[in-house]
């Protein structure tokens, strides 16, 4: 009977993984980010859009492999950086800064339905909706053309 433990534990791993991502929506806040695409495609994972974020800018740190930041809603409705540190603090998203632009691994790419990649890439103005949990994990929810 012990051999049944394998599928049971493996199912548990997948379920925990899923819960950890849904938890960002249950116990977090939703932000909408202004985004711009560049370069898509990965042979293993399929089509995705690589994104950069014009609003996520750091003036204090310009280049760093690991920075920690939180977001806040600005007056126009899109999210901007609230607090950015080089040391971890509770609720922070772990990311990196390159040339003053802030990003996080989960924000950099967004998998899209096969065939949608080129369309989204040609659209310069995009917006990404994400849920951020109170302990700093991100769940990307939606990627679409910006309506402004």
């Amino acid at each position, binding site marked *: 009977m*012990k*051999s*049944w433990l*394998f*599928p049971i*534990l*493996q*199912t548990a*791993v*997948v379920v925990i*993984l*899923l819960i950890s*991502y849904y938890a960002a929506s249950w116990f977090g806040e939703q932000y909408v980010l202004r985004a711009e695409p560049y370069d898509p495609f*990965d042979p293993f*994972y*399929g089509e995705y859009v690589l994104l950069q974020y014009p609003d996520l800018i750091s003036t204090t740190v310009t280049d760093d*492999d*690991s920075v920690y930041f939180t977001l806040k809603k600005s007056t126009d409705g899109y999210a901007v950086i609230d607090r950015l540190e080089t040391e971890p603090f509770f609720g922070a998203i772990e990311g990196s800064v390159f040339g003053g632009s802030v990003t*996080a*691994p*989960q924000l*950099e*790419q*967004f*998998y899209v*339905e*096969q065939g949608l990649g080129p369309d989204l890439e040609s659209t310069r103005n995009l917006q990404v909706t994400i849920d951020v949990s109170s302990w700093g994990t991100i*769940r*990307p929810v939606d990627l679409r053309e910006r309506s402004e």
Partner: protein
Amino acid sequence: MDTEQKLKQWQQAGLLEQETAERILEFEKHQPTPKKLPLLLMIGLVFLSLAIFSFVAANWQAIPDLAKVLLMLALMWLFYTIAQFSEKKAFGSPLLFRVIGLAMFGAALLTAAQTFHFPLANSVLPWAMFLATLAHYFYWRHLIYSFIGFFFGALVLLSFMPDIGWLEWIIFIAVAVAWFYFSKELAPVAFSWILLFASGFMLWGLVDYDSVLWPIWTLFVLVLLFLIVPETKQRIIRPLYLIAAGMLLVVYLAIRGQTFIALVDKSQLGEAIVLAIAGIGVLLLSFFKFRSLMWVAVPGVIGLLLFDETAIGLAVVAELSALAYLIIAQRQNESLGLGFVYFIVVQFVIYIIYAWERLDMSVFFLIGALLLFLLSAIAWWINRRKEGATP
């Protein structure tokens, strides 16, 4: 019937008594005939599964996110269940079904990663597969799980880069050591050893101090494993140490001889001296505990010899160790294959380093190398004959 004919033959040749032959026939008659699936049913099943797969693939985008993952999990359960029944009822191959079940677990993780936008720079997926495969290995002890485990162990190591943390590195080493310690066959022992050796390369990312000697340090630390394993296992892993030591010598020789960049700076002389002392330590330890491993101490001199820009010191050490190994192995009637390959590789590397750009000299080296090959081939041949091998 085939058995009947065979029995008749054996009976005629006087190998079997009439009575025994009859008893065997009687026994065979009562054996259940193997049940075969009708061919048409098999073809039908293949087509049905193809149809299901293409139907799912065609509608993949329309399936809700969560359902995609659940579908993969359902497939995983299906194959584990089939495996369980095939083991109980003795049909098909339970191993194959379990491997497919494991693959479906990987597929479920991958699907979850894609549909829920997990970051790529994340080691959760390879870790989950690595641990799951090792659990399979320890429960069923089948060779195939050690191959899969090695593959995902290597993926875990690769996923560490570029940002690697001490905690994750230590956990990985603990898992690999456990795998090494609790396995007995060659494949899992060798695979876990290679993973341990490769995890030493991660020190380049972990430590701020930029040393070129981490692989040698790793090999020396791995010598400690010899202290905790029984003698039968020592015999299995000894070639791994010798191969690694030989490869290190050749690689450092090739790099030092071929590149003109500053590999080492003067400030690293201290480390080179400490490495040489550690080499002496390894030499002493292996001299008193396990003499066959003494060769592993040779790379200890590499640190000091890297300061010599002509790489002649390294070439001499490589050449002498190759010759000495061959001679000693020949005297002790050990197999020469490994030493012979090392010897040839050393000749090639030295030849490329020192004779490549000097054509006039290269003819001399070519003739010398050919002569050496001939001589060593003769020595090898004589040794094989001495061991009693037929040509």
